[in-house]
């Protein structure tokens, strides 16, 4: 009778244990951020590209120009309000010796409807915005058709990638970069790479 009792206790315990495990699983889910997307490119090289400079005519950048140093690729646009908040912090990072390359994401341009793109108007807008916030960028790559952004798995702005000196993507952060995010996600990787001591 006592072994029977034990058995039935065990049978009752099984659903309880499953329920508790499920609770743990769902509880963890409460704190996971659904907006936190990771590119499928993590651990891979930056995809090949050749794209023009945002501010200088006839200047082209390619993936080969990026090789040899640790840097951040920051995806941004003048249309992006969060970028406006983020730019002063990025400027601070640059002052601390972090290389930041801008990937300018043009949001609404559609060649079928909009005709020729007015680059001068955009340059004026960019200069105005960077004059207000500080300019964190070594230079800006202009991705009019969002081709590099697509290959990187960018879904909006701001987004930031950490790339090592071999050109491998180590981190992908969606949303603004601030002191808290930098400390939690980027700082340790950076000291690991011994590029800058922060």
């Amino acid at each position, binding site marked *: 009778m006592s072994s029977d009792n034990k058995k039935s206790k065990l049978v009752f315990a099984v659903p309880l244990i499953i329920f508790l495990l499920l609770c743990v699983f769902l509880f963890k889910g409460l704190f996971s951020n659904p907006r936190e997307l990771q590119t499928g*490119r993590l651990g891979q090289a930056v995809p090949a590209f050749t794209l023009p400079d945002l501010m200088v005519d006839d200047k082209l950048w390619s993936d080969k120009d990026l090789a040899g140093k640790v840097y951040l690729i920051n995806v941004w646009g003048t249309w992006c309000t969060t970028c406006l908040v983020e730019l002063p912090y990025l400027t601070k990072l640059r002052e601390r010796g972090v290389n930041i390359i801008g990937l300018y994401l043009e949001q609404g341009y559609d060649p079928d409807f909009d005709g020729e793109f007015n680059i001068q108007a955009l340059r004026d807008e960019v200069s105005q915005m960077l004059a207000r916030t500080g300019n964190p960028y070594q230079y800006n790559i202009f991705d009019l058709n969002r081709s590099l952004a697509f290959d990187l798995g960018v879904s*909006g702005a701001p987004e930031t990638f950490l790339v090592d000196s071999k050109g491998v993507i180590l981190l992908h952060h969606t949303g603004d970069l601030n002191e808290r995010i930098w400390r939690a996600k980027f700082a340790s990787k950076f000291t690991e790479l011994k590029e800058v001591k922060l």
Partner: protein
Amino acid sequence: MKYFLFVLLMSFSAVTFAVEEAQTFHNEQQAKLFKELSLELRCPKCQNQNIADSNAVVAKDLRDKVIELVKKNESKDYIVDYMIDRYGYFVHYKPPVTASTLVLWILPILFVLIGFGSIVFRQKKSSLKQDWSDKDEDKLSKLILKYQNTSVEDKQELS
């Protein structure tokens, strides 16, 4: 008359829409594949919409890329992998079995197994508990006899 015009206009707009859709692809198969993929691929910007449903810039870019690849006669697996390479597993509505998604696949099966298991277990248990001896059998037949008789008498009384 107003109503008639409304219906007329509505039907025309539907026709033009259908023509536009058909013109995009070289053949029926490609159109079908595009439709399938645009329902199965998930917009990275908007949590619970597929790319057919969303007007986000990135969803449009994904649609355009799917059209481009479909027109190149790429297979469905190739296109899905192409998107997963860039946007991660998030972009596909059919998650693969990995350690973190295992619970989604196992839990329903587990629930069914435990449910049916407990039903079977309980039935077996209750049927085992009824020990039936010769004494019980005797008692039962006596009871049956007794009540059979009374019921016969009752009937006689009634008649």
